[in-house]
């Protein structure tokens, strides 16, 4: 996406085959050297192969306009998992939360684990779209759309769980500050109430941010639409975008403001989710390290999920030249960073547990590593601390397959992290008389599987109907979008110094 300082014609609405540029599908494309550097920056190009704006439009829009059979397989699979969710929830509403494995010391089980897991997943999208935007990280352009979509769907999945885990979900609106005949406010001291505000705000801003970013691309889709139905639908949501300079001016301001709004939310949401635990007095929960630790973990798991989604997507939709190895590598580096932070937090928790001299606290952590749930703890540690260390190796972090496998491990590890925090802290707390053990039931599993069904169904619908890559933004980071770029000339590295941003 073009930054506000630019004055050149916004690329998003370029009709295909715009004058002055090479026609698309030129045979020269096929012979491009992958190791070619960007002529202006002297770095790896963010867009490989595509020479023209139109190539980008085609590459992104084609899969949407001509769906392939693989999509149907993925969609049907997701849909059947969604059906599992439907059954699981219907039975849950009929019977009550007793169908899960919850019990007396462990009053929160998989539902809360899944909630925190999905909220965490959501973080990468906002980080990529807002924080990297503010930091002018241009490589974000080809991955931000899908990541933001992932964020929104993950938050939808996340919102599901606090709703259905309550004993009486039909009163789930009671924590909202709705004026009522009882003159009764919700309890503003409760972290659960903060959650309600934090997550709903996060969801609203993310949705708006995503939608605003979509507008130019929706207009592109509208313009390319071949059926009246599509034209109407895309046209409706494109809000009459024509790509005028005034449109771009307002659009970019709005985008900037939303990015500014979304950035603190990246930190606040998981901070507040961590308060659900940190504000309580339970050993293993009552820890001041939780906010940063949760945020790092969230970004960690979010990036892993982005990788999980994009590695197959870029192959299936033939977007390897837009979502390049460099993108994957960058994400892998963030995973390495945040994974290491998480590992540090694990270590620090133990140190503080010992250093505090609090017998309940030290027991809680000893119990985590060596108690009944030792296996969960060590799955967590191996997946979250050991797995990312492979990324130090260049061959691994540049191998999509390796990254895909690593990302799956991180996803598993981060789910277990939430499991370890929630369940092991609860099952053995202060009074040994009330200690218990929690094991999930088939309905716990079905709800988790079903939530993946919901997530993937939404994601399938997204990749089927909306541009998975921000076309307009990608175009803005191509060399040809730069007014100083002259095809065929030597725009060598020395050129960089003369560019002002």
């Amino acid at each position, binding site marked *: 996406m073009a930054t506000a300082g630019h004055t050149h014609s916004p690329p998003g609405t370029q009709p295909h085959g715009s004058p002055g540029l090479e026609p698309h599908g030129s045979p020269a494309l096929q012979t491009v050297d992958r190791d070619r550097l960007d002529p202006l920056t002297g770095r790896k190009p963010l867009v490989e192969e595509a020479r023209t704006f139109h190539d980008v439009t085609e590459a992104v829009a084609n899969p949407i306009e001509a769906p392939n059979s693989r999509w149907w397989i993925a969609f049907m699979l997701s849909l059947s998992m969604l059906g599992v969710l439907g059954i699981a929830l219907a039975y849950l509403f009929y019977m*009550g939360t007793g169908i899960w494995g919850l019990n*007396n010391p462990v009053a929160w089980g998989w539902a809360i684990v899944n909630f925190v897991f999905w909220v965490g997943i959501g973080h990468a999208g906002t980080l990529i779209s807002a924080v990297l935007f503010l930091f002018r990280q241009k490589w974000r352009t080809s991955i931000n759309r899908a990541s933001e979509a992932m964020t929104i769907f993950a938050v939808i999945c996340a919102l599901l769980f606090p709703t259905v885990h309550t004993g009486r979900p039909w009163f789930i609106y009671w924590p909202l500050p709705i004026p009522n005949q009882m003159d009764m406010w919700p309890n503003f001291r409760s972290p659960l109430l903060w959650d309600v505000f934090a997550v709903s705000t996060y969801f609203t801003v993310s949705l708006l941010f995503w939608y605003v970013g979509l507008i130019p691309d929706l207009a592109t889709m509208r313009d390319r639409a071949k059926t009246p139905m599509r034209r109407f639908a895309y046209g409706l949501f494109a809000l009459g975008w024509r790509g005028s300079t005034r449109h771009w001016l307002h659009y970019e301001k709005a985008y900037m403001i939303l990015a500014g709004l979304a950035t603190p939310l990246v930190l606040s949401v998981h901070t507040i989710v961590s308060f659900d635990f940190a504000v309580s007095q339970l050993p293993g929960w009552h820890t001041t390290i939780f906010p940063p630790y949760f945020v790092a973990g969230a970004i960690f798991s979010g990036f892993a999920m982005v990788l999980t989604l994009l590695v197959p997507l870029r192959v299936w939709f033939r977007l390897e030249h837009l979502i390049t190895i460099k993108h994957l590598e960058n994400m892998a580096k963030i995973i390495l960073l945040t994974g290491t932070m998480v590992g540090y937090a694990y270590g620090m928790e133990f140190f503080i547990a010992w250093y505090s001299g609090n017998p309940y606290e030290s027991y809680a952590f000893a119990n985590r590593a060596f108690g009944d749930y030792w296996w969960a703890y060590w799955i967590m540690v191996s997946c979250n601390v050991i797995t990312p260390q492979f990324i130090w190796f260049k061959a691994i972090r540049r191998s999509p397959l390796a990254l895909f496998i690593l990302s799956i491990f991180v996803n598993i590890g981060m789910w277990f992290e939430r499991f370890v925090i929630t369940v092991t802290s609860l099952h053995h707390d*202060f009074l040994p008389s009330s200690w218990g053990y929690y094991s999930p039931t088939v309905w716990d599993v079905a709800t988790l599987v079903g939530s993946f069904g919901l997530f993937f169904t939404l994601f399938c619908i997204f990749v089927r109907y909306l541009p998975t890559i921000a076309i307009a933004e990608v175009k803005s980071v191509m060399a040809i979008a730069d007014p100083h770029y002259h095809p065929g000339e030597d725009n060598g590295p020395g050129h960089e110094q003369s560019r002002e941003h």
Partner: protein
Amino acid sequence: MTKPTESLKTYWRSLADLDGTMAAPADEFPGAETTATLLPATKLARRKFAGLLGASTALAGLTTTGCVRKPVENILPFAKRPEDMIPGQAIYYATAYQVGHSVLGLLVESQDGRPTKIEGNPRHSGSNGATDMWAQASVLGLYDPDRCRVPHHLGADGKHAVSDWDTVTEELGASLKQLRDAQGAGVALVIPTVLSPTYRDTLRTFKEKWPKARIIVDDAAAANNAVAGAELIGGAGARPTYHLAGVKLIASFDGDFLGTDFDHVRLQREYAEGRSITSPTDAAEMSRLYVLEPHLTVTGAQADNRLRVRGGDVGGLLAALADRLLGEKDVRLPPGGETLRGSLPRATLTPEQDKFISALASDLNAARKARRPSVIVVGERQPAWVHGLGFLLNYAIGNGANSVRLRLDDLAVATEGLPVLAAGLRDNSITDVICLETNPAYDAPGDLGLAEALKGKVLLHLGQHVDETGQLATWCLPAAHYLESWGDLEAADTTVSIVQPLIAPLHSGRSALELLAWIASDAQIDGYSLVQGYWRTVLGPMYSDRVWRRWLHDGVVQGIPRAGTTPTPRDLGGLTTALTAAGSEAAGSGYELDFHLDPKIVDGRHANNGWLQENPHPLTKLTWDNAAYVSIETARKLAVENCDNLRISLGGREIIIPVWIAPGQADDTISLPLGYGRRNLGAVSRDSGVDAYVLQSGTNPWIAAGAEVARQGTQRMVYSTQNHGSLDPGVDPASTKDDSQGWNPGRGYPERPIVRQTTVEGFKKEPNFSQKGDLIAKENLRSLWDHNTHPDLGPPALIGLQQWGMAIDLNKCTGCTACTVACQAENNIPVVGRSQVANGREMHWIRIDRYYTGPKEAPEAVVQPMLCQHCETAPCENVCPVNATAHSPEGLNDMAYNRCIGTRYCANNCPYKVRRFNFFNYNKDPVNDNEMTRMQKNPDVTVRFRGVIEKCSYCVQRIQEAKIQAHTAGEDRVKDGVIVTACQQVCPSAAITFGDVADPNTKVSQVKQDGRNYGVLTDLNTRPRTTYLARVRNPNPELV
């Protein structure tokens, strides 16, 4: 339905045609489980009822098709209000309750004609205002939907067919007449222990009219051995009682006098008074309890010095003690006792036993010399000679007439035991058996083979259920519950109470007394006339209606002339013979089976009672099942873990029962609680435990040596509500694995200071030892907020005039769990069933935490009632997003059920884990919500819905009621002692004190001034309103 059929008409008329004295309940629809049987108190007219039934059926149809969530209910006003009845105001009636030889005087709460809650009668010496869990749960037994409702007759096809009382009167009456005409030849009347003067009088009539009939007593809960022991030394009719008031030294030989032995409610109160201390000076005067037993009981858990011994060795140890005591110069036996010392059985003592007995003997001698009252208590499980020796020793060391008293029960009717019945059935000298509220087909010792022998021989069975004997009976008749019938009971100390009904029989049941009167002389006399008639005769001219009403009101009969004979040990020949016989018996070897009355369901009589089934066993915390309790060593030897099935066989009989490792169990003994494994009794008892009666022998039912025990190979899951028994993380005393060695997570820190206890010596050294347990000293606890309990200060403080608080004295609490059941009865707490308990979802608002401490094989057990602590800064409150739990100005942590959305965050944040969640709609489960048990519900307490949290409310309904009464009386405060919580009321130890903590003069404030007062987890700054008085043990320093 509007027009009665001819047969029903006949039924009606014939009832009226009866001589009119039998006020038979008008069961209009015999056999049908209709609502008609449920509304006896209101006595709906037929047409009115039919109309209502039609209307409500129509409405029910509407509601099932529509979306109306709440059921439509018709409230029936009293067209003519009974005198003195104020709707919504409970009325209490005095009555009495019997288990075995124990009698409890009761006050029963009646809500709009329905008995709902049992309390002890403070005027009655057997209860002193307290009760036990059996009495508490008996009200649920009244509403047991599986009760036998109508008479049944065994048809030619071998199946029971529904009958009615007319047919019974006619056909059974004819059979009985024949037998009576034959003077009762070949008849055995099987009855439980009878302590009712009227019943005994009727028995005498029976004996007159049926002179050849045998009267057999079948009562597993009775103190038969103690009585036999008393008769050994005191002659026929001698009855013993123990008294612990003022006693400083108690030596219990396998006695569970705080648990299941007779008169345990009274003894618990007397024992607890002896443990009541306020300072180290008092503590020195505290009683000391020695216990020798094979299985850790409630009494054993209280012991200051406890010795694990085989049940069969207890007698030998008592003999060893006798030998030592009688060796003292000034200890003299009654005349005739000179040779007795020589005939004492000689047991070989292990060094540990020897040391224990020596220490006990010197302690007893010291007490005797210092004239400090002591007592030797012998448990019911021990054979008669051990009891006899125990009584004699008590007399010898000067406890006779003080802590042990014998009295002559001159009204007792001579009876025989079950072996006589078995022999009679075998040689066909008994052909017709009449069982009145007895169940020999189930609870007779297995080697008598009565379950088989009784087939085809039971002419008549009267019982609450169609139980194992009822299933064999030609006539199976419904018995009236004690809350439905008239009677009287004589307690151990001759206090007599009139048993008055709270409600007309819900079904067509009749009391055993009424039935016996009819059997004896064919006279259909109602219970009231029988009881009142008896006392009218006894009192003669002294009788007046005023006296009678006074008795009914007080629940205690006064002013009856009685011969006050006190037998003393005289002829010791019988005992000497018994001792010699015992000495010649070979000591038992191999695995020893120890049978016990179950602390929960007694001998099986409460097997279909959900409250008791679900109530955790006081020590092992098992629910819904029994198990074979073994020691860690025995479990290792048998290579079994908890829940592994054992095959136990003895004399060709065998059972397969899961094992449960019980710390404190003697090695090579297996303790088996009786009362489980009922066959087709009812929904609650289905699949509950294993029948251990099968292995019992008729000669010595309680202890059997030489059993063959082996691992069976399969498992049966049994569930305990407390899996971790130690306050030291990483150490589990109930595990065969040796975890005392090596590194354990969390070790290296002091044991958790949840339960605090010391010895008398330790208390002297450190009078404030209980505060030493605080992780953070009180003065270092800082809070962000100001808290005050002072009434003058404003919000956000606790501004109520009165501030409620509770103190629980751990020195008095025995962990009997009566409070758990009382709370369940008072607060409409649902029964959740085995599978839910298995997943830790029991709903009890008050639980008794039990921890083991000390050596793994023979640990001490400590108990601690845990309920909502009503923290002033409750962690549960600030985390609730919807304000469903909030603080009252009077310091209660209130729960608004209908505001709760069930996030369960409060449960997570409660450090005491006392909050309970309705994971399912437990109160809609048929066990809790059927036409019968619904009537038990306390109308003052909400019945909770699925998806809400609940917990102890300090019985807020009782607080409110007292406040309303105070307000009506024009007072601004409730007087101290007016509010009694359900747990406090039931507590036989009086361990719980409740009241206003803002007023320094109340009892609870004074108790909290005690140096032993401490709060659990106060380092979290929760400021709990419930505090505990730390426990002080008084072990013999020689044995430490």
